[in-house]
């Protein structure tokens, strides 16, 4: 399984803080994003290709082409604003 987590504005607008995917369903972050965008509404809008989406895999900053494996924790969130 792959754990997917949403934070901040994403968590609020998607109305969920996370969900699980079968490991085979998405081999890269981009493949995962593509499936999520297909849900339309806030999913398509927030995760659109031209949007700034930050990605973490196993709690480290990752890229769209980062491969996903069984047991991974993927997080999707808007640009960070701490400090």
């Amino acid at each position: 399984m792959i754990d997917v987590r949403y934070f901040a504005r994403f968590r609020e607008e998607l109305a969920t803080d996370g969900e699980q995917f079968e490991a085979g369903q998405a081999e890269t972050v981009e493949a995962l994003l593509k499936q999520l965008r297909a849900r339309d509404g806030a999913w398509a809008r927030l995760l659109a290709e031209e949007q700034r989406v930050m990605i973490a895999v196993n709690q480290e900053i990752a890229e769209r082409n980062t491969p996903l494996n069984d047991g991974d924790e993927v997080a999707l969130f808007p640009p960070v604003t701490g400090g």
Partner: protein
Amino acid sequence: MIHVRVQSEPLDPHREVDLLSQGNPAIGGVVSFIGLMRDSNEGDRVEHLFLEHYPGMTEKALQKIAEEAVERWQLEGCRIVHRVGEMSPCEPIVVVAVAARHRKAAFLGCEFVIDYLKTRAPFWKKETTQNGERWVDARDTDDVAERKWQDQD
């Protein structure tokens, strides 16, 4: 020598500076940055600020930034403490304290840490104004500040 922490209790910046420099007479300079909550943003009065973060990743990200700073400028110490949860104007949001033998390394190390923290550590600000709540947008100038450190290599 490196200490990073996330807490919902109010920060005590002075304690971090003291803990950083105590008992190491090789330290010649301590530079600290205290980020304070301002009472206005984009022309609106801000009453409260809520800081969300990604527990687990946050600490890892801060640790990595501190380690990179210590190695790059041969620092004698680096402490990063960031507050999360609800806070009010004038309260400290973050403290970065850096110690080095000489001042230049301390300045560079401290600025590097806060620049990287601003673009890489998973914190998000939501502010309460008279018009309700809103998420704070990331600033392009923060990306510019981060890239500066890569161009220098």
